[in-house]
């Protein structure tokens, strides 16, 4: 399955990675290659096989519903790019209509 340049640019924009035209070229090739490798799975009959969601043989790992003290507020805000009062301040991403 070959990816188009547009596919690569679309995926790059979804994950917020800036790519140059030259990089698009390289990624188009590499990602197409990777996908082609997966295509080889089609040679097998997997009708009776459950899709694998996880590879680790663990299940139902849960915790009891008990709360603990949260972090001090100043630590919460420490890594924020910008703060205003006790809030984290960010650029507007989507205009509210």
């Amino acid at each position, binding site marked *: 399955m070959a990816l188009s340049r547009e596919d690569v640019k679309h995926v790059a924009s979804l994950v917020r990675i800036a790519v140059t035209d030259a990089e698009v070229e390289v990624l188009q090739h590499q990602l197409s290659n990777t996908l082609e490798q997966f295509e080889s799975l089609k040679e097998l009959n997997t009708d009776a096989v459950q899709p694998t969601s996880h590879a680790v043989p663990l299940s*139902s790992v849960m915790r009891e519903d*008990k709360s603990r003290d*949260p972090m001090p507020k100043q630590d*919460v805000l420490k890594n924020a790019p910008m703060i205003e009062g006790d809030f984290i301040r960010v650029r507007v991403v989507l205009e509210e209509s």
Partner: protein
Amino acid sequence: MEWETVIGLEVHAQLLTQSKMFCACPADYQDAPPNTRVCPVCLGMPGTLPVINRRAVEYVIMTGLAVNCEINEHTFFDRKNYPYPDLMKGYQISQFPMPIAKNGWMDLEVEGHTKRVGITRIHLEEDVAKMMHIHEPTGESYSLIDVNRSSVPLMETVSEPDMRSPEEARQYLTKLQSILRFIGVSTADMEKGSFRCDANVSIRPKGSTTLGAKVEVKNMNSTRSVARAIQFEVERQIKVLEQGGRIIQETRGWVEERGLTVSQRSKEVASDYRYFPEPDLPPLVISREQVNTLRKALPELPDALRERFMAQYALPAYDARQLTATRAMAQFFERTVGGNKGRAKAVSNWIISELSRLLAAAQKEVDDYPEATLKTWSTGINQMIELVDAGTISSTQAKAVFDEVFTTGKEPTAIVQEKGLAQVSDTSTLKTIIDDAIAGNPQAVADYKAGKDTAMKFLVGQVMKLSKGKANPGLVNGLLKGKLESLKG
């Protein structure tokens, strides 16, 4: 052309857990100062790992069972990827192909018949941070973020597109709300945002079996607004189609003050969530034993309770519905009746008319009050019924006394004594008062003898006045009439 409305609802309800969905931060964010219910996990710090809250999973199973769902034995969480600042990690942990519960239904009572609405799925996810959008007069715009709500457990219930009118949608929501409250998994409060509803609305020519383009309507903050928004949207779509237009599949926001929906397609691109199984959380296996244990632990649900009230206490359907509106109300009714089933209708009347009126005025619900207060009210209602039955006070006085019981918490008998409200039903005392009234009003007596009926009323009034309103009116009538007739002779 005749049109048919098709409605499906998506409801997000916050679960009433003590801690958040994937970390141990307290989930009581509602009244907390900004960014004080936060830890590295819900802040999406690199290297942190989520751990599933067992109670949240149980609550979804309980809800599923309460609305007749199948519970998936094998389920897992997925990552829903989208870049928006209310998601600290850049993705939301949700469930996509394998929800915890699926294929359920609820029966609604609409205009006298039963309407079954399918429930497609119920899945578990996490809530997002709260954002405030600031627009400075200078033209500068930015957003402020409070992370407290991030990762509060959120349960999404998706219905089938089975509803055909705004009223059916309203009933569906009210019923789901009441079930969630009954089983104690959510406060289901729309105004406080712990219960949110998006409506998918489309129309099609009556008789058609294909679905029209659907519009998702958001931003309603009461069940009433949901019904209004759907009504508006249906009328809007009919107008567009009848004018030869086409319905665009889009998201529209309800604007309460203006009573209309507006398009929310600003810069939105088609969503591309790239769901994949959440690698940080092992899958869940829900054993059949666990499901059975939870099923047995479910309290009596509103429908069953209503039917039991009608059968066990011989109550009309209206009373049974009112009394089962909340679990606390139903419990209050049962404790007040106690073993005295013959009194059930009288108790129901007191609760539905007086107590409900007082609660509504105080903007409270039964379970907002402590146990001791409820006990006083229970005793109070029983005493009121006895006092009225015995003729000690009139039913009008009883209402005033109960107001006082409600506000002061005193016992009715004490209030009656304190205010000297007790009716005078003692015949010899009444006879003395009647004699006084007759002696003081010879003209009225003469009028009565002459056949004027109004004279009788006047004299009753005089007796009541002399007794300061305490004379038992029924007795006064009988005694006075007897006396006057004897004078005629």
